[in-house]
């Protein structure tokens, strides 16, 4: 280390702390410097947000934003590893901030203890370089997608249920990648939407997908590697099978990223009667026989 020529902005302390990642030949000092001037926003500090927050707190970012409106519940602890028994009852963003700041005290962590709406999301999203969708419901996923397209931010999106997970990067402009609305112009019928509280989820499935979200975010910020845009990873933990499918490009007909968008200044308000959290306000009819 000592005879390393100093043509970068990293301190000796940073060189030491991040040495095991900056010696990777494809990564190097340049990528580490990019991380040092980058920010990421994690929306949802639950099963996916936990590993994503821990790894993004560790890697050497300048700033990490954490959004959640919920408090830590004991039933979260089987999978939400950024929280623990001592923070049950506290807000999830405070709990996550506490754990992340113990890992990296030089990281700026900003927390947003609120329910995202079409009125408040733009001001938050526009401050960050990359956004991670770690939420648990359809309405919020459209909201985040629209805000990311309007603010021109890449969106690393994962979702999990039971033993399965899905991962992709939306709105990756460098590859003309699609947004969530390009793929799903219409929301699914409410009764087809399963949630973690309906049909369950295993912690390590969240760990796998949330870690992969952090990996894609780091690759986007450092411009290293091939980004999972125009592609979607399907994970089935029960059979341990992984499959990458090829997706359409950006659609010219898309309501938000197309050539004649109808969504322009801010995301539209949610349809009446739809809620945006993981409570059983929409009972999942299909799986009701699986409840206890």
């Amino acid at each position, binding site marked *: 280390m000592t005879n390393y020529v100093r043509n970068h902005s990293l301190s000796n302390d940073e060189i030491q702390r991040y040495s095991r990642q900056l010696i990777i030949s494809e990564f190097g000092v340049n990528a580490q410097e990019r991380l040092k001037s980058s920010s990421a926003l994690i929306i*949802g500090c*639950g*099963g*996916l*947000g936990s590993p994503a927050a821990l790894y993004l707190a560790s890697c050497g970012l300048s700033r990490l934003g954490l959004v959640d409106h919920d408090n830590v519940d004991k039933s979260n602890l089987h999978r939400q590893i950024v929280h623990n028994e001592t923070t049950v009852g506290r807000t999830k963003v405070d709990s996550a901030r506490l754990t992340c700041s113990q890992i990296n005290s030089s990281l700026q962590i900003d927390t947003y203890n609120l329910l995202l709406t079409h009125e408040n999301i733009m001001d938050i999203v526009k401050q960050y370089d990359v956004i991670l969708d*770690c*939420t*648990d*419901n*359809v309405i919020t*996923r459209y909201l985040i997608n629209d805000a990311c397209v309007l603010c021109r931010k890449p969106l690393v999106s*994962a*979702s*999990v*249920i*039971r033993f*399965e*997970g*899905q991962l992709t990067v939306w709105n990756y402009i460098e590859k003309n990648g699609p947004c969530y609305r390009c*793929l*799903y*112009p*219409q*929301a*699914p*019928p409410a*009764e*087809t*939407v*399963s*949630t*973690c509280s309906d*049909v369950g*989820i295993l912690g390590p499935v*969240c760990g796998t997908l949330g870690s992969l979200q952090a990996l894609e975010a780091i690759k986007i910020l450092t411009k290293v590697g091939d980004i999972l845009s125009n592609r979607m990873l*399907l994970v*089935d933990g029960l059979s341990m099978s992984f*499959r*990458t*499918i*090829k*997706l*359409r490009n950006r*659609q010219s007909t898309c309501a938000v990223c197309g050539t004649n968008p109808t969504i322009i200044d801010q995301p539209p308000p949610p349809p009446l009667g739809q809620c945006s959290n*993981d409570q059983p306000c929409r009972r999942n009819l*299909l*799986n009701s026989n699986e409840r206890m």
Partner: protein
Amino acid sequence: MHLTLEFAGGAELLFGKQKNHSIDLPDNNSPWTIRTLLVWIRENLLRERPELFIQGDSVRPGILVLINDTDWELFDGLNYQLKANDNILFVSTLHGG
């Protein structure tokens, strides 16, 4: 004509929880397409609540159709003419976190 059908992301729950289906379509006067395959699926494979899988003559919103692991939008969508041994994957989008 032999095909492999796969259901994932919860769509398999409508098909007796079976993810992989090896099927043989009967000979037809006109070529099989995704559109006519959906009719066949509804009549022959769907165990319950067809409205959770099919809407009109297509799949319901929130289900992706992959032809040999490629988004059907990159082919002709409903009008894609099936070839022997095609793999057709129906993925229900997940939303949990």
